[in-house]
């Protein structure tokens, strides 16, 4: 049973467009929600993260939107660039289970030039 459900599995966006990746969860013990970016041949790297007491966090072209009541959060990439082509993982920290990170299955993003 996937505790963090991520969609879509893959996404193709034109350069300059907006990329949107969504994640949903059920466990109310989750207390921190990071997004990781992974390029081919590399390990994932922390991109941006949010706590549940905030509804939005923006860092450059990357924004997390968080809806606590709906138990959903999403990553928006504005003005998407070919260099953003990567796999994106959402995750949630489980405060009730040794604060382990629970991962979504990932979204493969391709930004066409």
């Amino acid at each position, binding site marked *: 049973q996937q505790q963090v459900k991520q969609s879509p*599995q893959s996404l193709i966006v034109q350069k300059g467009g907006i990329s949107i990746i969504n994640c949903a969860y059920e466990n109310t013990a989750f207390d*921190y929600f*990071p997004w*990781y970016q992974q390029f081919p*041949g*590399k*390990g*994932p*790297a*922390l991109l941006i*993260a949010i706590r549940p007491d905030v509804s939005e966090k923006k860092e450059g072209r990357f924004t997390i939107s968080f809806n606590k009541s709906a138990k959903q959060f999403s990553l928006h990439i504005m003005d998407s660039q070919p260099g953003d082509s990567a796999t994106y*993982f959402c*995750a949630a*920290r489980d405060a009730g289970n*040794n*604060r*382990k*990170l629970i*991962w*979504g*299955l*990932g979204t493969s993003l391709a930004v066409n030039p």
Partner: protein
Amino acid sequence: DVKVTQSSRYLVKRTGEKVFLECVQDMDHENMFWYRQDPGLGLRLIYFSYDVKMKEKGDIPEGYSVSREKKERFSLILESASTNQTSMYLCASSPRGRQGLNGYTFGSGTRLTVV
């Protein structure tokens, strides 16, 4: 530049061999993790360690063991490699007390093929 170093990028082993995957971090992190990554299955936690000489099972520990004799080094051991253990293995570390908050630092991975 802080980093997590995995000893091999590519490894080919025969079925039944004992395989050691090594991971070293230079950030003085207390927490270390081993994941495997397979297409469509995301990142699955094999084992983790919060301190030297301690270990805890993750979600898929069967067929694996770990060793953490020094703070900076966390080894993953495949006792008897099987073809279904062909995968990308990722090591990660994070500081204690802020687990996840500062982010996990991942190595570049070891792609293991068992033939």
